[in-house]
């Protein structure tokens, strides 16, 4: 069996581990555009902060590829997939045949075409290790940095550089920070917190026109900058498979076995659009745990065994300048809100089931909430009032929690 994997991040590594859990002999070739050992992408902000280093950033130990006998082709871009010939062509026109192919190319930063953008010398995105290193090279303690986009990437980028530069300004079209995962109250908490940390924040505004070192905003104010970071959003990197004729939506559509519409081609990670159990439809779930689950599932299926992954759901774990934010599921149905000096909590429940939650700092045992969502645990079967205050196993019925804790049952 001859496996080819495009991509070198979480989903690709998970696929290797999935294949090797079944097939110890098959040949695996991994092709990646980046010229680095597999590293954990979210850690690029911590690298800049000095909280980690090149070695500690590695997602798997150096010997990983050797231990799993994987041939690695780094720094090469795959340009064409020919399903009929079951081959992949790289930019240097070398080609690799495959019996099973996995596309784990993740997502690409979305750079909106703002007029004058081509004149900006120091324009960066903040997705890869190289992006981070380039950004680091172009800033110093006198630089003013403008970050477009107050989402996960934008704010993590601020956190990364705020102590290394003179000033950081973040602007976002939305009325609040982290619009995709927080509600109004929690995002205000985050906003006040990061402003207290010296980050300038301008919401409900965008760039009308940009010049070499300054930007004219929609509120007609001008912000000078020495470096501009585009963190407006991401797009799934699906051009390769779309050209090959695979069914796609925003991302590459995959079934419960992470297989695409073309036989022997699988897809996993941020570029895949799989089933989201909370929304009960296919969605892109660009989160690391989901990438691993899909990658592993794809690996197992590629190796000939059957594995189903239908428990994907949106979830986020974000630590931002000392704040800890945990969110999961969808924000529908009745709600329970609680806030004290320990933190903010908002639970969403419908049809006798927990649907989603937002936690800021009051995050202990959040995994119990996540498990309740994933397993559709009936709230009537437990002491819901108790669990509203604090996620706890003692809210479960006695036999249930005893058999769970004694590993007689899994969630």
């Amino acid at each position: 069996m001859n496996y080819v994997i495009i991509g070198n991040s979480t989903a690709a590594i998970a696929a290797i581990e999935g294949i090797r859990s079944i097939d110890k002999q098959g040949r695996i070739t991994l092709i990646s555009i980046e010229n680095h050992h597999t590293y954990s992408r979210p850690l690029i902000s911590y690298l800049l902060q000095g909280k980690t280093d090149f070695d500690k950033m590695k997602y798997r130990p150096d010997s990983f590829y050797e231990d799993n006998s994987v041939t690695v082709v780094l720094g090469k871009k795959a340009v064409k997939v020919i399903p009929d010939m079951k081959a992949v062509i790289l930019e240097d026109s070398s080609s690799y045949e495959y019996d099973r192919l996995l596309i784990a190319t993740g997502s690409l930063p979305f750079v909106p075409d703002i007029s004058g953008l081509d004149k900006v010398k120091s324009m960066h995105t903040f997705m890869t290790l190289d992006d981070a290193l380039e950004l680091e090279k172009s800033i110093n303690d006198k630089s003013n940095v403008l970050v477009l986009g107050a989402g996960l990437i934008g704010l993590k980028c601020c956190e990364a550089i705020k102590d290394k530069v003179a000033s950081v300004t973040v602007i976002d079209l939305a009325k609040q920070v982290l619009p995709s995962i927080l509600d109004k109250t929690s995002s205000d908490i985050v906003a006040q917190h990061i402003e207290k940390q010296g980050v300038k924040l301008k919401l409900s505004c965008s760039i009308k026109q940009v010049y070499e070192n300054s930007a004219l905003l929609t509120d007609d104010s001008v912000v000078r900058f020495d470096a501009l970071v585009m963190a407006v959003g991401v797009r799934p990197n699906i051009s390769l498979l779309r050209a090959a004729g695979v069914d796609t939506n925003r991302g590459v559509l995959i079934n419960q076995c992470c297989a695409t519409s073309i036989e022997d081609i699988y897809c996993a990670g941020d570029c895949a659009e799989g089933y989201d159990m909370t929304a009960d439809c296919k969605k892109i779930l660009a989160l690391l745990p989901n990438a691993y689950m899909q990658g592993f599932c794809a690996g197992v299926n590629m190796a000939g065994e059957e594995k189903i992954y239908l428990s994907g759901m949106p979830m986020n774990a974000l630590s931002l300048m000392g704040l800890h934010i945990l969110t999961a599921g969808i924000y529908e149905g009745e709600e329970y809100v609680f806030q004290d000096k320990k933190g903010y909590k908002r639970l969403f429940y419908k049809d006798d089931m927990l649907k989603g939650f937002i936690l800021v700092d009051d995050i202990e045992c959040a995994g119990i909430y996540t498990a309740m969502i994933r397993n559709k645990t009936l709230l009537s079967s437990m002491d819901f009032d108790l669990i509203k205050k604090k996620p706890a196993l003692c809210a479960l019925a006695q036999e249930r929690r005893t058999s769970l804790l004694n590993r007689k049952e899994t969630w």
Partner: protein
Amino acid sequence: MQVNDMKMIKVNEKWCLGCHLCEYYCAFANSGVEDMVKALKDMMIQPKLRIEQKDKISFAVSCRHCEDPICVKSCITGALSIIDNVVSIDKKRCIGCYTCVLVCPYGAVMPSQEGAVRKCELCVGNSVSSPACVSACPNKAIELVEV
């Protein structure tokens, strides 16, 4: 009982007195300090297990060392891994993003003051031979059992 073949801390809430001794002995055993007073006096203790209490019922919860641990799969840095059937944490690589806290269905991986998460590692590698909570429990509510 050799710790590293399939072991698990089994808590029998029938006998748990809610006295919290397991918490303090766990924090002490993992403190790396020889004297308990020096280890814990005037400090927020950092035990690797947590105690739940609901009127008369109480019990300690610690890592189940699952065979197919969702925390290891979700760990963004690879700091969580299985070593000899024990789900272990590499404190140097964990940056405290708390994805594991978000996914562990038992709440057995806990945030900590110095950032890296704290979780039970069956006292492998610290000063005590068998898990400290087992020997600390005055009423044999906590036992180390074969799975």
